[in-house]
């Protein structure tokens, strides 16, 4: 069973790589877009903090680590689990029914559906994270080296959990594009800044409802010795993997519940 799953997954990546090779110019342009996307976000941060050196006690150097942590977890999620975001589209087109009759787990079938996926953004994120670690002046000790991989993995699970939640809603509400877009915006834009700048309600939301703050803010605050918000102890920053597993557990249970009730949209 495990070997079969691995074989299918291997094929998934083979097709992805072949697709990238087939459309080389297009692939390079999309890679260039990834650079521009993150470049403009960081550029805007740099300009802002060039004019105003401190944001609630965070400098531009601190915020590169904040961005690097988010970027790496996000890129890892998009490389491994990009397909989950396509579920609403599959449901709408009736394509989802085909995945249901596959002899493997449906969620796995979703994840292993090839697309134009290539780990270019992941390489970029890894490179940037190394630069940000050195530039931010964070102390690279044993705790940092040991914990960062778990924090990144946990951040990836958090993003997967939220996306799975939204994807499951598509079983009942066929159009979830608006919600999807707004969640993405919360995740990509609200995580760019230390969450201490937001009102209490938004901070609570980003910590306990859609826990994006655990992707980067709490870990970065811990590593950089910044006071965390919401009266949480600094060590909460190392809880990211726990939060990730807990939320993914909830999201997966909701997904199973949704699958049992799924009746198609009437194709």
């Amino acid at each position, binding site marked *: 069973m495990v070997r079969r799953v691995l074989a299918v997954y291997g094929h998934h990546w083979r097709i992805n790589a072949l697709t990238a090779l087939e459309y080389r110019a297009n692939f390079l342009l999309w890679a260039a877009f990834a650079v521009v996307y993150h470049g403009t976000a960081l550029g805007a941060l740099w300009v802002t903090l060039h004019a105003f050196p401190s944001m609630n006690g965070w400098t531009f150097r601190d915020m590169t680590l904040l961005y690097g942590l988010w970027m790496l977890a996000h890129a890892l999620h998009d490389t491994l689990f990009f397909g989950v975001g396509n579920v609403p589209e599959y449901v709408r087109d009736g394509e989802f029914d085909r995945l249901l009759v596959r002899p493997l787990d449906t969620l796995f079938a979703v994840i292993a559906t090839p697309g134009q996926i290539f780990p270019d953004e992941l390489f970029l994120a890894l490179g940037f994270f190394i630069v940000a670690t050195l530039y931010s002046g964070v102390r690279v000790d044993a705790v940092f080296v040991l914990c960062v991989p778990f924090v990144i993995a946990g951040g990836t699970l958090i993003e997967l959990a939220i996306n799975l939640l939204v994807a499951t809603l598509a079983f009942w509400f066929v159009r979830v594009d608006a919600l999807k877009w707004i969640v993405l915006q919360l995740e990509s834009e609200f995580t760019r800044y230390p969450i201490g*700048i937001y009102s209490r309600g938004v901070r609570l939301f980003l910590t306990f409802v859609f826990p994006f703050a655990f992707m980067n803010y709490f870990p970065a605050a811990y590593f950089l010795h910044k006071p965390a918000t919401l009266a949480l102890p600094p060590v909460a920053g190392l809880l990211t993997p726990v939060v990730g597993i807990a939320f993914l557990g909830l999201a997966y249970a909701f997904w199973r519940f949704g699958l049992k009730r799924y009746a198609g949209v009437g194709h």
Partner: protein
Amino acid sequence: MIADRAVRRFRFAPYLEFGKKAIAREATYRFDVFTSIGSFALRMYLLRMVWTALYARNAAPRDLPLHAILTYSAVALLMGLVLDVDQVSSLYTKLHDGSIVSDFLRPINVPLYFFADGTGEVLFHAALVVPSLAIALVLVHIDVPSPGTGAAFALSLVLGYFVGFTINFILNASAFWTLEIHAVQLIVTWLTDLLGGELVPLVLFPVALQHALFALPFAAMFSTPLLIYVGEIPPERYAAALGLQALWLAVLGAVCVVMWRAGSRRIVVQGG
């Protein structure tokens, strides 16, 4: 020959119809409306929090107090609702699926058809400004400019809109040659966000960069109208600022004409 006669006796009515049809088409995408307004509200909240936090702990720039920068951000977001619409995307679609051929057979001026269609699309999105403005007013206070400044802003906004139209036209018309344009289009959109002053006012950039950025067409889209609005460009510099916008419009417009002439002569239809 029918086409020749139609061109000689130009009639406005068909283009008005094309515009109306575009409005009706856009109105069917109701979910996009919710997305636009929802993401507008999120961005407005975010910008308010970001600027408030920055002004609380740092020395404010001498001529850009907090209320001015919040006004700038609100007006920039509202402008984005209209200026970020790719009103020429149907040109790309038609080049991609080959249906552009039938447009060339119709007794119409094809570029003017795309202009009418795009204007209709934009007018629909312009209607979103009303609910969005209401949301913005709940979150921030927007300064109201003097009538003179308001008029200069309106003129500059119109010029900025047309600069945006030419940039979109050039991007979509490049599909005459490349057939796949989305990545390039997104790259340009993101660069416009930053280099056009939509995210952060260009006057906050390091001085050495400012001079280069003010000269680029991106600034002609967003930055010029916005800086007029908040008074960063004083009345004595209106003529120069508007003149530069008009110059970019003329240059980009000329590029559009050249591209259209060259492109329409070499239409390649991909099977179909």
